[in-house]
């Protein structure tokens, strides 16, 4: 089918707009949504897009390029240097061990040595795009699993340089190179010269980045035309891609390097925000292209071979990662996430596979099977992560305290128990402490507990939703429990346990937002503290003062607003299930509040400040 570019664009965009909200609603994450969208519009199902899927993939790989540029730009060389241990250790070992294992396996099956090595190296890589995007969406990039995953991915991206340099050396003597493909500068060079070209290109990027791009950025910024800056940012990434493609290198890696070179530049954030939207769209396109490129005809013709390969590959990678994670002392729960997240094969594999085909390292048949395997392993990853989130993690949270880490023994009893010592509970605890009030602190995040121990803060590891643990923490004799767990689910759990087993304890409970507040109200909690309410109002008061409003007025205004807001919330909680009534009442409350506040501001007095008003006295005096 011949379609115009606009038609194809329309299909892709429509698929994204339809599938992503559904995927998110189902809790599947956008990556899986894009992949599914790709499968549906691809040649195997609806066939809206056919062979051009491959072309689009080339185009969409540009999204990965931009992603790596952005990752690079967020990584200052110094930060990169700080991470050298996990990058080199964890990442290096992962690539080496996985490569060795897969190469050995391929040899066992009877592949020649050079093909086995190429396969080993290719399949040892994981998908930066899928892993980082998925972890970012779940907010797990900052966790120890996320950090470790990033280190490994980074090493893999770097490892692509030597791989691309080694691949030509693996090519058989009969390099006929008959397959038509993009010609690169190094096609007709001897192997050693090709290796030199690769290293030369990398050097060019670093040197140009420092001595050419930075001064240029300054000039462009001075022009003060926003589009010009965006254009330049794009030009930069495109140029790097062209240069890298020219020498047959991975554009993504070049972009990453370019990003790192510019990480210290004062235009870093500008570049970031200019490229970000392009990255998002192209990355989505990339995921869809991956989905569309899964050749279901091939898969169905030999389902067990391909599925077996996918499962075996992912298992090998995951087990290697698990063992490495354990060696690097990642906690079991995080280690599982780490291993599952990185168990797929990455997008570089597509590049490397076509490369091996061009260089006659692997036969065409093997390449197409492996391409399907790679795409499937990528498609499985979001599913695996979903599995981890839904099935493994919750079970783990409960089990962890029982199996891997015993809840700490608690010494000394205090009138206050703090359940959850994150950024919120932390401040409450510090405040009580300076007021001479000792609290028994429980926290579920083992990394945080250890970190606090190092700071000399006495925090007990343990799940506050366990009755026995609360009892051990002295709940029977305590007066007050401050509940500030990381998630609402945990918070509600603790509230229920306290209500059931320690009804005498006064609960002070943190809520993140209004729905949480309602749920807590339903449970009969009287003292609810919305996380950002007071800070926001304090900021509002400061803003008023900067605009010339008197400090005392701003202060009273904050008090009035908070009181009204809390009162309104209590009333709204009862009717929140009647959507229409709820919305109308919210509108009314907003109006009421505005009226009340403006009466205080403009002409008539708030009843509470009536005493200072002299207007009625002036009126009376002038009547005489």
């Amino acid at each position, binding site marked *: 089918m011949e379609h115009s570019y606009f038609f194809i664009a329309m299909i892709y965009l429509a698929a994204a707009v339809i599938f992503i909200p559904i995927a998110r609603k189902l809790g599947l994450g956008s990556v899986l949504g894009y992949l599914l969208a790709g499968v549906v519009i691809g040649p195997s199902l609806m066939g809206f897009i056919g062979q051009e899927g491959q072309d689009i993939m080339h185009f969409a790989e540009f999204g990965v390029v931009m992603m790596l540029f952005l990752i690079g730009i967020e990584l200052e060389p110094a930060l990169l240097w700080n991470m050298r241990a996990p990058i080199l250790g964890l990442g290096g070992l992962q690539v080496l061990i996985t490569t060795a294992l897969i190469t050995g396996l391929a040899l066992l099956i009877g592949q020649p040595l050079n093909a086995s090595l190429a396969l080993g190296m290719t399949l040892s890589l994981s998908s930066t795009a899928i892993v980082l995007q998925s972890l970012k969406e779940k907010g797990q990039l900052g966790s120890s699993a996320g950090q470790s995953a990033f280190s490994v991915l980074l090493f893999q991206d770097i490892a692509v340089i030597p791989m691309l340099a080694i691949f030509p050396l693996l090519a058989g003597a009969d390099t006929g190179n008959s397959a038509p493909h993009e010609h690169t500068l190094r096609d007709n060079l001897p192997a050693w010269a090709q290796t030199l070209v690769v290293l030369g290109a990398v050097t060019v990027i670093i040197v140009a980045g420092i001595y050419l791009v930075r001064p240029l950025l300054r000039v462009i910024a001075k022009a003060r035309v926003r589009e010009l800056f965006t254009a330049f940012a794009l030009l930069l990434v495109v140029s790097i891609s062209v240069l890298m493609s020219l020498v047959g290198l991975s554009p993504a890696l070049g972009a990453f390097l370019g990003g790192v070179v510019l990480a210290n530049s004062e235009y870093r954030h500008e570049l970031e925000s200019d490229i970000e939207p392009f990255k998002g769209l192209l990355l989505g396109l990339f995921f869809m292209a991956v989905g569309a490129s899964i050749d279901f005809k091939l898969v169905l013709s030999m389902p067990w071979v391909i599925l077996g390969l996918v499962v075996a590959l992912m298992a090998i990678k995951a087990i290697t990662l698990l063992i490495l994670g354990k060696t690097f002392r990642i906690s079991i729960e995080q280690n599982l996430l780490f291993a599952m997240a990185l168990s797929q094969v990455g997008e570089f594999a597509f590049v490397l596979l076509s490369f091996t085909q061009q260089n006659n390292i692997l036969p065409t048949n093997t390449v197409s099977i492996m391409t399907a395997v790679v795409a499937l392993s990528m498609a499985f990853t979001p599913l695996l992560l979903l599995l981890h989130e839904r099935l493994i993690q919750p079970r783990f949270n409960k089990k962890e305290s029982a199996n891997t880490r015993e809840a700490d023994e608690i010494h000394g009893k205090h009138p206050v128990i703090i359940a959850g010592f994150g950024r919120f509970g932390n401040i409450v605890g510090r405040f009580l402490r300076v007021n001479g009030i000792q609290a028994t602190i429980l926290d579920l995040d083992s990394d945080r507990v250890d970190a606090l121990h190092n700071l000399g803060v006495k925090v007990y590891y343990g799940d506050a939703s366990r009755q026995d643990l609360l009892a051990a923490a002295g709940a029977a004799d305590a007066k007050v429990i401050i509940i500030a767990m990381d998630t609402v689910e945990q918070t509600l759990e603790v509230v229920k346990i306290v209500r059931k087993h320690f009804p005498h304890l006064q609960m002070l409970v943190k809520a993140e937002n209004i729905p949480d507040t309602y749920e807590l109200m339903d449970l009969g909690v009287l003292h609810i503290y919305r996380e950002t309410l007071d800070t926001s109002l304090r900021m509002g008061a400061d803003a008023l003062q900067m605009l010339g*409003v*008197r*400090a*005392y007025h701003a*202060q009273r205004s904050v008090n009035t607003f908070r009181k009204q807001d809390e009162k309104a919330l209590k009333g709204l909680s009862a009717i929140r299930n009647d959507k229409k009534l709820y919305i109308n009442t919210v509108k009314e409350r907003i109006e009421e509040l505005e009226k009340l506040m403006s009466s205080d501001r403009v002409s008539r007095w708030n009843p509470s*400040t009536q*005493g*200072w008003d002299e207007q009625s*006295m002036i009126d009376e005096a002038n009547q005489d």
Partner: protein
Amino acid sequence: MAKILILFAHPALEKSRVHAQLLTAIRGMQGITLHDLYEVYPDMNIDVRHEQSLLLQHDIILFQHPLYWYSAPAIIKQWMDLVLEHGWAYGRTGTALRGKTAGNVISAGSQETAYHKEGWHRHTASEFMLPFRQTAALCNMQYIEPYVIYGTHKLNYSGISEAAIAYKQMLEQLRDGQLKIQ
């Protein structure tokens, strides 16, 4: 040249007719420190050490405020309760304020005639300031008669302007020692 500290209190200056103009008239005067209590301590959380050091740096302390219920707005009382510490402002060792001068600058809604033995309020403005007078005495300070702007309920804009100019002149004389203090 004496240094004057004006401890100003008005909980809603943004709505004030009289004091807003008084402040405009005296702002930036040499030797005069204007200290707006409600603006500095909107939460009533008075920094006692800072207030005491301010007092030490000045010779004449004036409380400027509208007359509320024959007295000053709440923050002035809070200020006195906290800042005039025993052992610092009064008591055997409390000599920090010895020899300084204190007084009130007040605005009153009624006319001067209402502040008389036979008038509506049955006492003079000076009599109502008795707690201030005795506080000053206890702190070994000299209390000057209150400076009162009467009849503010009936003052129009130009009337208030005149009062503001007069106030400024009074402060100049006080500062330069030309005003006789009984």
